[in-house]
């Protein structure tokens, strides 16, 4: 079973640039959300058949396969669905301060949103913990208008 690799052969460099593609994407639910965030509100769309509330919203219900358009407002607080504590960056290098990265289910919504939790030691974070959004002072209608979440 002793296998010896042979000598290294020639290698040439090449690139595939993923930024050159032209992706067609509607993003209507994203616009609905961002327009609401300008007023420090969170809006999504409810399915009339099953009642699922999506934030940000697709144009149809993924459970019922029907078109949906009923705009609803949900709370800017909710509970931690799951979380992780980042201690290294995308390439595996250690980062200076750990970051609590969470999936948060806002009250009134059935979907999870990604966000950072601050103001709590990471050892104390639990699934199901109540958190609220901390908004920036001057919202511009962007995802960065919620700066982070803190425990309620």
């Amino acid at each position: 079973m002793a296998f010896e690799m042979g000598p290294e052969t020639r290698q040439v460099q090449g690139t595939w640039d993923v930024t050159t593609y032209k992706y067609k994407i509607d993003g209507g639910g994203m616009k609905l959300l961002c327009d609401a965030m300008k007023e420090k509100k969170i809006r999504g769309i409810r399915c009339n058949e099953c009642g699922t509330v999506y934030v940000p919203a697709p144009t149809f219900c993924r459970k019922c396969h029907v078109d949906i358009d009923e705009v609803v407002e949900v709370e800017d607080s909710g509970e931690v669905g799951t979380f992780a504590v980042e201690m290294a960056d995308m390439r595996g290098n250690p980062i200076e301060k750990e970051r609590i990265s969470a999936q948060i289910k806002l009250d009134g919504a059935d979907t999870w949103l990604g966000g950072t939790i601050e103001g709590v030691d990471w050892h104390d974070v639990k699934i199901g913990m109540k958190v609220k959004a901390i908004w920036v002072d001057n919202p511009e209608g962007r995802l960065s208008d919620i700066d982070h979440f803190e425990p309620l």
Partner: protein
Amino acid sequence: MRNVAIIGVGYTPVFVSKRKDVNIVEMISEAVDAAFRNTNLTPDDIDSITFGNMQTFEGLNLPHLWAADHISALGKPTIRISTGGTTGMSTLQAAYYQVASGLYDVVMAVTWEKQSEGDSQVGLAGIVMPEVMVMVQNGMDLFGGRGIGGMGGGSTGAASYQATSYLHHSGASPEHIDKMAALERTNASKNPYAHLRKATTVEDIQATPFISWPLRYGHTCPTSDGATVAIVVSEEKAAKLADQAAWINGVACCASDPTTANLIEGQITDPAEQQPARIAAEKAFAMAGIKNPRKEIDMAELYNGFAHQSLMWLEKLGLCKEGEAHKMLDKGALDIDGELPTNASGGVFSTNAIGASAMNRPAECALQIMRKIEGGHQIPKKVRNALAHGWGGLFQYVTVMIISDEPRKA
């Protein structure tokens, strides 16, 4: 539908980080040659070829056509399959369909990855690029973590969300992940076709840094270069061509809502829920005539890019009750000589040439059943029914195969 058997497997001589001595097609041909050697077949015996690897990972389009002469495909039907992490088993399932349907009698499934030549992070980014671009245009701080939607940690970050949820709902502790990791790495040390082959203790695992709590560096899989080939045949051909065969008696796959990548249209599924695993397993058990999987399944080969997943899959696939897998680990049931040997090969967690990873699961099951395991990880008890599992996509696609020592009864 006809019965289908695996009559032989061929691996590259090694699975390692970098095969600098061969190019992609030369590496693939090593596994093809091994499959011919192990079955005493020649290229003339093969009716059709299925071929699988990850799209874009090596920045290479149409690799199956570049490889055509290296896989003895000249003048033969050849199809490429690419379904993400499940690619290897999807490629074997495609071969299964061709034989079960009666279309062909002898089909070779070729699976591989040469990760050292590519960039898997670019390949993974390609999965969600349009959505990420929209999020970034709308103010998402992609890596910094301010605002909504930032997703640090890449694949490990998403797996950590899954691990946290799994621990919460099962009652297992982070130390159980360490223990499962040590068990599988130690199994891998006995497998000549494993990549990370060092006997490892719980303390060794616990000495590695956290990447994204609860997952440590020691909980993550390597990136490997390697290829695996399996030859599947009809029942009639198996009687003529092979002394031994392992039978593919159950086949299933299932998708659900993308649990980690629905960035702009609302994620509705817990990444640890994994409903497709339950659905696919139930279908495969029914097809194979398995009525009580907890009693009838003798071993499991599970797709685990991360060490918590072996425990999670045992529960989701119905091989134990929810919250029971870590207790089985504690009492030694998952050891090679235990009640339900789990990843005796060391799993994807120890060897990950991605396109081949979900093929190595049924390949290992077949070799265990035929008692042709090389190295020291042969399961001592007789294996009648084995479960092979593949996982991937956007965290939401599962393949299952039941491999047995006897063909399915009509």
